[in-house]
Every structure is written in structure tokens, then in C-alpha cells.
């Protein structure tokens, strides 16, 4: 039986990571904020992937969180970063609660395509809604924290970095506990054989729905971070390429380790930034080669570097996210 870090140790690591921002160069703060925010939504995809289903439309909840926060912030003046994250999570979660039970009846490619279709429906609706700024979107004010307003750019960046790292870290701890729990094990069982799960008296649909809602909560909170970082929102939040980026992070990470999601997200952001800086015309190529390399040499994701493989060595390789049904 494998035992991981104790939650108290993990909380300590999260606080240390947040304080580490004090010594980081300013340019890395915003990069790390984006990486943490992307890791949060990718973590949700990993949570869902443990049931054997991949969402290609997390942009739906990402946009729901972002737009929900932006509208409430502009109408009621709520600028507190923590409150905004909570509002984003609630918006994403509520939408997940509506969609989850309907979509949990589908599996595999049907599940993935339905999530993608729903996100594109929202994208289309946002594009045509002039009250929400249409394709241009709209701006929001600078976030505050517990009544403190940050006018200094470095302090504002650090505040956002700290809140995103702490939130994503706490979500990671919660996911770690979830993965080891009854629900976590039942989720893996659904991934492998949902018929047997039913024969054991468990509802596979309910298990998928719960994981779906958790993923939606994480996506909504991530949308709030993206909004706070950009102070602007537009329909691109719901576009399929946005969702695709989060799936990239999840594929890179694999489904076995929470820490791998953060490593994968940070690695992707670093590769993207440096390739964009030094190879401005071919940076997508570099990113593609990086992704292919990880998929080729670590088919079960970056997490497989430190998580023992349950498979026999002579079993055929399976991809990090999309393998599901038992043979």
C-alpha cells in the first residue's frame, strides 16, 4: 500500500511555495500565476479522467466562472480576490450540477464531444450577446485582498501569485485526499468496468457526476484567476483552443499524481515563454515537439516518473488520459 505525504506537510509546502514568490523575479510571478491557474483546471480534468472520461470543453466552466465573477464584480463592487475565487468556483460548480447528471450517461468520445459542443454553444452565445460586450468582452477593476488595494505592480502580482498558489495548492491537497478515498477508488473502478460497479450496488453515473462537478468547481475558480490576471474577459474563455490547452496539461501530467499536474503546467508555461522569446516565428513547433516527446517517452504522463506503474512491464503502453476500459 502506497502512502503519500501527510496533509499537514503538504500545507507547509504550499505556504512555502507562496512565500517563495517573495524572492522570485517579477516576470516569473505572472508566469507562475498562469501556471497555477492552468494547473487548477487541469487538476479538475485529471479528477474527471480517473472515471475514464475526458472533457474537451472545460472552457465552458472556465468562462462561467470568469463571466460570473466579472458581472458580480462590476455590479456589486466585490473586488476581494478570495471572494472572487469563491464566486468563480460556485458559478462553475452550479453549471456543473446542471450539466453533470445529463452528461454522465455518456462515455468515451461521446462524452468528450458533448462537453466540447456545450462549450462552443456558450462561446457562440457570448459572441452574440452585446450586453456582455460581444466578441470584445469587457473589463473589470483591479482585485484587492482583505481590504488592501495593491497599486504597486510587483505587490499586485505577488498577491495574485500567492492567492493562486495557495488556492491551487489547497485544491491539490483536497484532490490527493480524494484520490485515496472511497470515492477516489470507486472512480478508478468506473474507469475500468462501470457495469461491475453497478452490479456491486454503486451508481457509476453518480460517481461520474460528482467528479464532473468537482472538475467544474476547479474550472470556475481557474476562470476567476484568469480574469483577475487579465482584468478583462471575452468569449475566448469558452473557445475550444482554450479547453485544448488544459487537456494538454492534463495529458502531460497523467492521472496518477497531483504534483505532476503542477509540474506539467509550469513546464508547459516555461517552454511556451522561452520558445516564444527565442523562436518567435516557430514557437508552436517547439511546443509541439515538447508535447510529442513527453507523450512518446512518458506515455502515462510526467507523474509516471515517480508513481509506480500498476501494469506489467510487457503490457502495451497506454496513453496518459484516454485509456479507460478494461481489456
Amino acid at each position, binding site marked *: 500500500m502506497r502512502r503519500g505525504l501527510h496533509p499537514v506537510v503538504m500545507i507547509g509546502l504550499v505556504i512555502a511555495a507562496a512565500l517563495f514568490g517573495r524572492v522570485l523575479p517579477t516576470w516569473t510571478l505572472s508566469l507562475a500565476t498562469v501556471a497555477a491557474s492552468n494547473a487548477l483546471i487541469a487538476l479538475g480534468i485529471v479528477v474527471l479522467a480517473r472515471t475514464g472520461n475526458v472533457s474537451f470543453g472545460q472552457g465552458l466552466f472556465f468562462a462561467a466562472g470568469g463571466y460570473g465573477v466579472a458581472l458580480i464584480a462590476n455590479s456589486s463592487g466585490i473586488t476581494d480576490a478570495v471572494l472572487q475565487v469563491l464566486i468563480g468556483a460556485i458559478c462553475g460548480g452550479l453549471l456543473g450540477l446542471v450539466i453533470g447528471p445529463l452528461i454522465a450517461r455518456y462515455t468515451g468520445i461521446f462524452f468528450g464531444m458533448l462537453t466540447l459542443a456545450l462549450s462552443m454553444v456558450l462561446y457562440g452565445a457570448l459572441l452574440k450577446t452585446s450586453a456582455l460586450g460581444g466578441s470584445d468582452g469587457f473589463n473589470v477593476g483591479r482585485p484587492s485582498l482583505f481590504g488592501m488595494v495593491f497599486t504597486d505592480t510587483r505587490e499586485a502580482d505577488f498577491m495574485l501569485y500567492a492567492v493562486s498558489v495557495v488556492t491551487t495548492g489547497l485544491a491539490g491537497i483536497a484532490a490527493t485526499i480524494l484520490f*485515496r*478515498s472511497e470515492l477516489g*477508488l470507486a472512480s478508478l473502478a468506473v474507469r475500468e468496468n462501470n457495469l461491475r460497479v453497478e452490479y456491486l450496488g454503486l451508481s457509476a453515473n453518480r460517481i461520474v457526476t*460528482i467528479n464532473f462537478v468537482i472538475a467544474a468547481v476547479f474550472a470556475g475558480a481557474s476562470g476567476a484567476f484568469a480574469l483577475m490576471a487579465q482584468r478583462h474577459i471575452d468569449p475566448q474563455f469558452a473557445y475550444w483552443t482554450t479547453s485544448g490547452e488544459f487537456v494538454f496539461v492534463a495529458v502531460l501530467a497523467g492521472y496518477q499524481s497531483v504534483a505532476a499536474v503542477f509540474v506539467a503546467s509550469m513546464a508547459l508555461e516555461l517552454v511556451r515563454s522561452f520558445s516564444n522569446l527565442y523562436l518567435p516565428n516557430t514557437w508552436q513547433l517547439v511546443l509541439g515537439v515538447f508535447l510529442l516527446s513527453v507523450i512518446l517517452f512518458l506515455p502515462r504522463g510526467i507523474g509516471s516518473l515517480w508513481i509506480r506503474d500498476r501494469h506489467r512491464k510487457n503490457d502495451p503502453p497506454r496513453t496518459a488520459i484516454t485509456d479507460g476500459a478494461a481489456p
Partner: protein
Amino acid sequence: MNPVLSVRGLEKRFGAVVAADALTLDLAAGQRVSLIGANGAGKTTFVNMVTGYLKPDSGAIALDGMDLGRRSPRDVAKLGISRSFQIPQLFIELTACENLSVAISGARDQTLSFHAPAQAQGRRDTAIELLGRFGLADVADRPISELAGGVRKLVDIAMALVRRPKLLLLDEPTSGVSAEEKFATMDRVIHAVAPDAATIVFVEHDMDIVGRYADRVVAFYSGRILADGKPNEVLNDPEVRRYVTGGAR
């Protein structure tokens, strides 16, 4: 005494194929019943209908007098009918102990915990005790993918047993097990199941196993019951010898 399982006029057709033709059957508590018949005779269809996987075209199924109606496999399991499968239906990436742990979660009939460890000591002890009954305690922490077919069969049956079912349906418990190990495997199953399952129904093709372990035999042919009675009577029935056993024994 009221039967544990009561089946009345059960019918099921797949196009022109009659899989169940007015099946009527009562099973008393504590019986060990073997279902025999050639491939396609309707044995597995019967098991699938009793467990809610297939809906009968007509007829009624009752467990302890309670109509099972058109309930799902999940609801049927909760009412006290468990089954194992001809091809073991396991979670092959998980260990044997983890497989049992999922079954224990199902048997609790409570909302799954978000935080209680799936491998908590008490739960693990229960799983290992159950595996131990089948002589499998030493493979508790090995993934199913590393286990032999016969061992997987036993883990499959152990999972069905977690609920302490009123009725346990075993679909060909010795298929895929070598001829030398069939009796040993069946001995293990009967020994392990005895304390929990009041009534056992097992689908079987090996007439030596049927003769040794069943105290009642129901022979199927083309979706109907050809013969029903004590093993010696049924296995020596001329029609059964002609259509089912082909003169075996």
C-alpha cells in the same frame, strides 16, 4: 416455506431466437442449484434477467416475495442478489484488495466518502479475511492484471460475496480452470460461500461438478426447462441425455 426466488412465466426473445419460454421456477433457501444446458439454451439469459441486466418481455421475478419488476442491476444487488461472471469482471489495474474494497463500498449502501481512506485498516482486514477464505490472502496486494485466470475467477466470486447475498448466482465458476484444478477450485468456492450465501445457483457445463456439488439440477433447452429435480434424476433423464449432456456420465 416461501421460496427465496420465484420466477413465473418468464419470456425473452431476441428476434427469432427464444431465450426464455414461459420459465417458471421456485428456489428454496439453502438450495445449491445447478443450471445446465447447451450453449444458447438460455442459462445466462436467465441469470441476466434475474439480476436486472436484461428486462424480460413478460413474466414476473420475485425475491423473498418482493417483485423485482424492471429494477436495475444496482437495485437488484441492493435487494440481495449477487453474481459472478463467466469472464471475470474485475478492475484489472487495481489490486485484489482494492477490488474487494470497492465491493465493500457498494455493500455499505451509504454515500461514498470523499475523505475516508479506501484502504483503511478495518476495510483492508475485511477484504483480506474474505480473500483468505478463498486461499488468496497472499495475492491481496497484487494487481489483477498479474493474476492467473483461475485466481481472477475466485476474486470475482469473492466480490459477489461481500454483500452476504440471499441468492448468489455463479456463471460457470470453473470455466477456464484446468481439469485437475476444477474440484479444488469448486471446493474452495463452496467452502468460502457456505457461511454467507443461503442459496447458490451455478451455471455449469461439467457434469462431474454438477453431480458432486448440486443438490438440485435444472436443465435448459431452447429457452425452456427440460427437466428439474435431483442430480441423478435429471442427469439420467433420457431427454437431458439427448439434448443437454449428449450421453455424458
